């Protein structure tokens, strides 16, 4: 099971890398969303996938219980999903606002913050 999940994670990483290399901002946004999901799945996989015993300790247990599912990765993923969602909504609005006011979604043409090409200033010293 972990083997197939690992391959799936790799595929999603590849797809998101492809998207992130694009010039179009909306593809970057989608790439980030994919990347976030790939990471979540990755954490889920590295926590070891087991099927049968839920992570609830019976009241009368004495000693150790083995083979139990790992609850921690799910807590981590939950945190990462919440954070990822907040960030995703932010960059979605940011991309839209940038498109609105800069009039382009091509990151090559977004050069307002970069210095303009001008004649060299005359040396005065």
């Amino acid at each position, binding site marked *: 099971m972990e083997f197939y999940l690992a391959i799936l994670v790799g595929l999603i990483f590849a797809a998101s890398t492809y998207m992130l290399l694009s010039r179009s901002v909306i593809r970057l946004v989608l790439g980030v969303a994919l990347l976030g999901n790939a990471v979540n799945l990755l954490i889920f996989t590295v926590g070891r996938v087991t099927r049968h015993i839920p992570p609830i300790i019976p009241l009368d247990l004495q000693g150790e219980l083995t083979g139990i599912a790992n609850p921690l990765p799910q807590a981590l993923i939950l945190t990462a999903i919440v*954070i990822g969602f907040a960030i995703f909504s932010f960059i979605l609005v940011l991309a839209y606002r940038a498109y609105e006011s800069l009039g382009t979604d091509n990151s090559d043409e977004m050069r*307002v913050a970069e210095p303009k090409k001008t004649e060299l200033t005359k040396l005065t010293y």
Partner: protein
Amino acid sequence: MVDPTILSQAMKTTPTLLADWNIIMPMLIPLVFAAGSLMLRGKDKWQMPMAIVAVLLSLFGAANLFLDILYLGPQSLTLSGWLAPYGISFTADALSALFVLVASLVTLLILMYSPADVDKAAIKSGYYTLVLMLLVGVNGSFLTGDIFNLYVWFEVMLISSFGLLILGGEKIQLDGAVKYAFLNLLGTTFFLIATGLLYGITGTLNFAHLFTQVANSEAEGTLAILSLMFLFAFAIKAAAFPMYFWLPAAYHTPRVAVSAIFAGLLTKVGVYALIRIFTVVFPEGNGAAFEIFGILGGLTVIVGGIGAIAQTELRRMLAYLLMSGVGILMIGISIHTDLALAATVQYAVHSMLVMTGLYLLSGVIGRMAGSFEIAKIGGIVMQNHYVAIAFFGLALAVSGLPPFSGLWPKYMMVQAAFMNDNYWLIAAILIGSFLTIAAVGRASIQMIWRGGDVDTPDGQYEARGQRLGAKQLRVMMLPIAIIFMLSFALGIMPESLIRQANLAAYDILNIAPYVKSTLGG
């Protein structure tokens, strides 16, 4: 029922001492006040005093924690009744405490400057709330003892910095924010990937527990790759070569107070994370051997210096100077002796203060001249002597010349490199310092001494900018004057800071007390 003896191995059976809460106070106080200021949204008059009170209290908390650690060594608190490594730990050593102290101080200085720089609209959009949340994220990152928790603080910091960056929503800010947001997001995501894989190998997220687990782990190859991923993630955060491009693209776009707080705090958190991860989790550097730090650091110093010379915009020049400083910190981590690490800590404190001061000063100069283009600024010395003196002093400080604070850490760093036979790192530091001197020297000749714009004859300059009123100028110059005096004091009496820096370096290299304070035993 569960046997209580088993339970006591995982959970606290006695209540937490009130004194133990000291550790999280510098993070908790601004968090509570940020929530309060969010609730009082719309009451603009309340925002600024609340923020000042919050930062004063957290400065007090930080000082308290610092003294505690000075006398008692590293402190730790594990929350919600669990024992480490099951609960989430906060662990602070001398390094964290010193950084928290300086971060709170820098935030206080920026709040003092803010009334002169931040307009009503920005306050309505929550400027002060965001500044407080940024401090929460920064202090939380410095204090946490849990690697996933560190990721959460990074995100807290990131989202508040996004908010601060686009306050105002101008074209240039949106453009800068797109680059800043995507590249930083990539950095934190890589951090999360590496954290997930590290958890997969070691089964723990607690720094102190990781220290023992990684040392016992047999997956050396995977750990080596992971160390490189951490290096990549934090090098983006710290703006080291070649992952620095977001910094000069974004730091000159927001209002000056925001640039200053970013310059003072954000890159240093990246450096702090590098120090922490590469002493507690990878004490030998593993795959990202310390040579790589040296190469990246040396190149960052030189590229930062060259970039600073090439810029024609004042704040973009400062961005490259900031980056050059990060290179020196990376070099310190690379050499990794107690002398080098003491120099690193000292340089980080110096850089936090001085870069904040320079950015704040760029706001004053920009207003006086009506532009941030160096070619369009002139005659500052004729308009106001104090501004000219402040720029001159801070320029000396940033290039590491006496009598200011930049000299001693650079001197110690060169000495440490000598003792380790790292001659090319010495060359990098010295070339970088020379380039910095050239850049700030050019800037002061053009902005301070030149009569006016390029081509105006001396003495015929009409300032385009606003004449700053005496009161506004006082508000703006007071925090700069404090930084100037601090930098001067640390320059002529360096031993006070060197003692703390040595202590921090000792805590960095001797992890046993850190581990013991978290795990007990």
